[in-house]
């Protein structure tokens, strides 16, 4: 690898002709980092027909784009091989990815193949005495680790929402540079056969005003009807975290979070959900969040407005009863 520059590279994620919001968060933070390191912010844009997106990346000093049919659909192999070739030519100091289903693939693959140090799931990154220091969130939000990276090139992945996106939006025209595919298309050895749309379901949870969200704490499928009763009392529907869908208890269309839906209901009632960052990403902007979790230290209480640290199975019947009473629906008691 050529001697390292002090440049900070941001891998640009885009889907269907739009740059992901997360990328602007990374670009904004990169301005601070590049300033402290004495380098430039470089946005790396890979894809097919992506040139029009380059103009939206004005927070970068430079946009390097590779526009090639071989990069039309993301595969870790194609984008990783190209990134590696570019990084070997130009030696960035820091390579930043979102901690997403694309970024986590690329970061680990490159760290493995190039022997570069990597810190994943960062909530914060700074520069101290010319060295990069990153704080990684571990164990579903119950632990933080501050790690220092030596003075050599490194990779980080950054959690969504860690930094404000506004700082990464700019009208300034960046310097844009087209680079031809730096490797033979044959080196990209994977084929995307087809794209799959998000799961369509019976209900669109992103439109429901009230969501009763169930997590692994619901324990078994047989426990779902009582949450459905509660949801319909409140004029809402039941949604869930990923493990509930993975267990086959609810269809994928009900999943909230990174790989599910982003929701913003008037009320999000979280039952037995720990509050992992991948879940929180999908619901943190709800108007009112009430969380029930038997673990008083569950990270969900960091995003909720109100919390109850009790067994959900003890609270649920009483809550349902109280609501029925309030609605004047209580049985002839």
């Amino acid at each position: 690898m050529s001697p390292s520059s002090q440049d900070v590279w941001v891998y640009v994620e885009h889907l269907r002709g739009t740059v992901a919001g997360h990328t602007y968060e990374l670009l904004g933070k990169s301005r601070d980092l590049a300033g402290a390191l004495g380098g430039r912010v470089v946005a790396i844009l890979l894809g097919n027909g992506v040139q029009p997106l380059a103009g939206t990346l004005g927070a970068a000093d430079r946009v390097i784009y590779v526009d090639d049919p071989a990069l039309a659909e993301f595969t870790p192999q194609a984008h990783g091989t190209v990134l590696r070739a570019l990084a070997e030519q130009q030696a960035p100091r820091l390579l930043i990815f979102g901690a997403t289903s694309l970024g986590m693939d690329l970061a680990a693959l490159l760290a493995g193949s190039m022997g570069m140090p990597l810190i994943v799931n960062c909530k914060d990154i700074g520069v101290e005495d010319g060295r990069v220091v990153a704080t990684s969130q571990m164990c579903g939000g119950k632990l933080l680790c501050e790690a220092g990276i030596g003075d050599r090139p490194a990779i980080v992945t950054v959690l969504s929402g860690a930094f404000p996106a506004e700082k990464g939006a700019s009208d300034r025209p960046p310097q844009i540079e087209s680079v031809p595919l730096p490797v033979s298309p044959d080196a990209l050895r994977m084929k995307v056969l087809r794209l799959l749309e998000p799961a369509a379901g019976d209900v669109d949870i992103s439109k429901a005003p009230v969501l009763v969200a169930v997590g692994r704490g619901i324990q078994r499928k047989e426990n779902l009807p009582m949450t459905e009763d509660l949801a319909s009392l409140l004029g809402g529907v039941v949604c869930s975290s990923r493990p509930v869908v993975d267990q086959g208890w609810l269809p994928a269309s009900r999943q909230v979070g990174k790989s599910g839906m982003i929701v913003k209901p008037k009320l999000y009632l979280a039952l037995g959900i720990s509050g992992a960052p991948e879940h929180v990403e999908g619901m943190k902007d709800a108007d009112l969040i009430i969380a029930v979790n038997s673990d008083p230290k569950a990270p969900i209480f960091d995003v909720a407005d109100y919390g109850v640290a009790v067994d959900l199975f003890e609270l649920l019947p009483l809550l349902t009863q109280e609501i029925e009473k309030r609605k004047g629906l209580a049985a002839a008691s």
Partner: protein
Amino acid sequence: MNISVLLNMVPDLVEELEIDASGTALDTQWMRFLLSESDEHALEQALLLKDRHGARVTVLALEPGDAEEALFSSLAKGADEAVKITGVSPGLSKRVVAMAFKEALQATPSDLILTGVYAIDDLDGHAAGLLAGMLDLPFVGVTRSVEPVNGRVVVQKEYPGGFAAEVEVGLPAVIGVLSAPQPPRYVPVARIRETRKTRTLTERPVSVAESLPGLTIRRLFKPEPAERAEMLTGTLGDVAGQIVTILADRGLVR
């Protein structure tokens, strides 16, 4: 097809995590471990491939973190061989984990290497991608199904925003599984106990450097709750009443 499944033990978050005196590592003395969730799915994916298409499934795990239970449980579920990798204590380093797996896999030729795409204690990487990079093998992570087609595999890879793609991958390859197409199968404790009596683990010593090249852990700590929720307390009946009042104030129950 020879399938290797790499298993990682992670802290059980039901227990309080303790940080050791150095302030840079977890105190594992009383820690309870469990098999990483996405590895459970990787194992299920491998067993599904075996059930439907025939395969020889080898599971491998590093000894630290009470891996024996997970290895015997995998045998009870249908794995053909279980390898306990000894001689390495990776601490918090997934790079060291990946290096240990890389060395251990030399004795287990594999067409397909399946492992979870992430673990809750990932810090310096995700083992699946790191290993693929070290082995220079094709890699797709964050997958939810793997099917063999004409000597290759077709995987469903998740993209952000609920999108996904079917990707065709030549073998050998490393696949980082997030979910299997169906929930991990259950095996009764009695069957695992039985397996402990009738089957043995293959022990495989490895020797890898255990330092984190280029990284220093400066501090491991628990987050200071920034703006925590207002906690509702009292009897369960009180709490239910308080919630209904909050909802009524906002016009959410009428």
